[in-house]
């Protein structure tokens, strides 16, 4: 079912946890709320669940205003970060717990529980207590408990953060599969951009209680709405350079960063001029910084000399920390690129991939 936050705000004492938050989640959509800790994403989820009351605004589920309804009448299921399984009950009872409140016949409950357990491959641990399960199994029990309720929406609060890296990657894929199978609306909270990018149909990025941008993962990555989103999304992070905007002969423009001038494409130059900005911040993704020797100068927006500080090899690629004129930046180079720490090399920034931001408010040009 569709979910809507309508100008929702929440204050805890002096802290504004959520400010005028409006978001529409379509029926069957996998929506990720992404942001650093304390950004308000969990508050938003708890308000949707009915565990917190908003200070202002309304929440609707399937077109019905549920702002004043208690959690049990909202027909949503939640998966918690630490799973919140009832430790004294067997896995079976944990899964059946929510159903027993709904006066569902015992046989029906039994069938539903066993079905969900089979789907999530926990049928063999139904008699055990949560304490005797591995982290991954607990996670599945928590999912099964949410699943059997056949809720209007799944709310998930960092459900993978307690798993180790390998299991997390595996569970991510399983969640995607599960969602495809169930087609239920999911609102998923995480601070992990990989989870957000891989699982979300759309991502809503929050910071300090304010919605920064909503969009498909690719859009968020390629066209971040502002400096915060640009910096938060992508690993390693984007590098930023600030400088005055200067006209060049022939209608072009240059961002005159000391010792590192960036030549703008004609369209970008026109747009920047049109916006009347005096200074801009240039954002460069690590994959757009390359070795100059591999690169024709005419495809470069900028070339510069840099000292190689640290080379981190990930096997399939290198993350190379550079220092140029006292400024740090990170380049992502293919594995086997001929670089070593301590060397000074010439690098180029690929043309057509520069992102321009207004320095004061951080809004992106275009």
């Amino acid at each position, binding site marked *: 079912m569709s979910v809507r936050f309508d100008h929702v705000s929440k204050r805890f004492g002096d802290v504004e946890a959520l400010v005028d938050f409006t978001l529409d989640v379509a029926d069957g959509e996998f929506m990720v709320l992404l942001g650093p800790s304390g950004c308000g994403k969990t508050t938003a989820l*708890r308000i949707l*669940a*009915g*565990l917190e009351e908003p200070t202002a605004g309304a929440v609707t589920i399937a077109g019905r205003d549920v702002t004043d309804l*208690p*959690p*049990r009448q909202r027909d*949503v*299921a*939640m998966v*918690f*970060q*630490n799973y*919140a399984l*009832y*430790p*004294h009950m067997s896995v079976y009872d944990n899964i059946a*717990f*929510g159903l027993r*409140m*709904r006066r569902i016949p015992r046989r029906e409950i039994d069938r539903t529980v066993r079905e969900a357990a089979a789907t999530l491959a926990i049928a063999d641990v139904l008699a055990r207590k949560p304490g005797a399960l591995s982290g991954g199994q607990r996670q599945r029990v928590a999912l099964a*408990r949410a699943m059997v*309720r056949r809720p209007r929406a799944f709310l998930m609060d960092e459900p993978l953060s307690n798993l180790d890296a390998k299991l997390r990657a595996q569970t991510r894929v399983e969640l995607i599969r599960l969602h495809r199978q169930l087609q239920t609306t999911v609102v998923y909270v995480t601070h992990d951009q990989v989870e957000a990018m891989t699982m979300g149909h759309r991502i809503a990025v929050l910071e300090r209680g304010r919605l920064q941008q909503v969009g498909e993962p690719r859009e968020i990555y390629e066209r971040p709405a502002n400096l915060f989103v640009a910096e938060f999304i992508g690993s390693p992070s984007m590098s930023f350079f600030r400088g005055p905007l200067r006209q060049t002969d022939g209608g072009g423009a240059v961002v005159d960063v000391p010792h590192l001038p960036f030549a703008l494409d004609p369209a970008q130059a026109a747009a920047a001029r049109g916006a009347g900005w005096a200074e801009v911040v240039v954002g460069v993704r690590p994959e757009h910084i390359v070795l100059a020797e591999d690169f024709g100068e005419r495809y470069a927006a900028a070339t510069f000399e840099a000292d190689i500080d640290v080379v981190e090899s990930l096997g399939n690629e290198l993350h190379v920390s550079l220092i140029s004129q006292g400024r740090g930046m990170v380049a992502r180079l293919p594995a086997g690129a001929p670089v070593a720490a301590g060397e000074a090399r010439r690098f180029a920034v690929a043309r057509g991939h520069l992102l321009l931001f207004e320095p004061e408010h951080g809004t992106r040009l275009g």
Partner: protein
Amino acid sequence: MTRQSAGRAALRLLGWLPLYALLAASAAVVMFPLYMTVVDSLQPIAKFLTFPPDFWPHTPVWSNYRAAMTSIPMPRYMANSLIMATVITVGEVVTAALAAYAFSFMRFPFRTPLFFLFLSTMMVPWEISIIPNFQTIQRLNWLDTYQGLTVPFLATAFGTFLLRQHFMSLPRELKDAADIDGYGDLRFLLSVVVPLSRAALATLAVFAFLQAWNQYLWPLLVTNDPNMRTVQIGIASLQSEEVQRTNVVLAGTILALLPMLALVIAFQRFLVRGLTAGALKG
């Protein structure tokens, strides 16, 4: 290698020795009066007064116990004590669990100040409120009744405090999960909080029972009818009844002690866990 580690093990044992010696000595000091009470309660009165005392009842005189049971209405007293202690225990555990639940899981204005106000009543000695309590009971016409014996003790700040501290250690998400699963407060309390707090509840129950069973002053004040007296008062009247036979009084004391002993032994597993709960989360 093995010789070395054997030597080290022996050394470690030697290191423990003083500690165990001290513990054994303390245990002996604590247990000795109790042991002598048991011994003397089984001695004939003639032996009881000899010096040096006899440390073993060579010819146990079980009739001392019969005398203790018959010279005062001991069974009746014990029944009264049992009823009083049971009602107080059940009442205290139930009210404490409900109040502790409210103070730890429900949100309402002034929750923390109210809790501290509640706690502050623990600082007031019971003796201070004994007169107003007595007047209340008298006015209600509850002298010589079980209500009079029990009602003032049905709710205590101590019990609420003990349980609240335990409830606070339960993960908040359990409450959130139960809210979403559709469980109301009472059902959540009964089906999640109580089963997860068995040790704390058992600890409170044992303390409450012990305290109630050992009460002296209050039952003495509110009962005049011998049919309503409790076992501790019984012992006192046994003392005046049996001035000549102190060993019978001791037998009575042992009788009054037995239910307590049984209870503590039965619950000792929980008691240790309850008292150390929070020290080590398990």
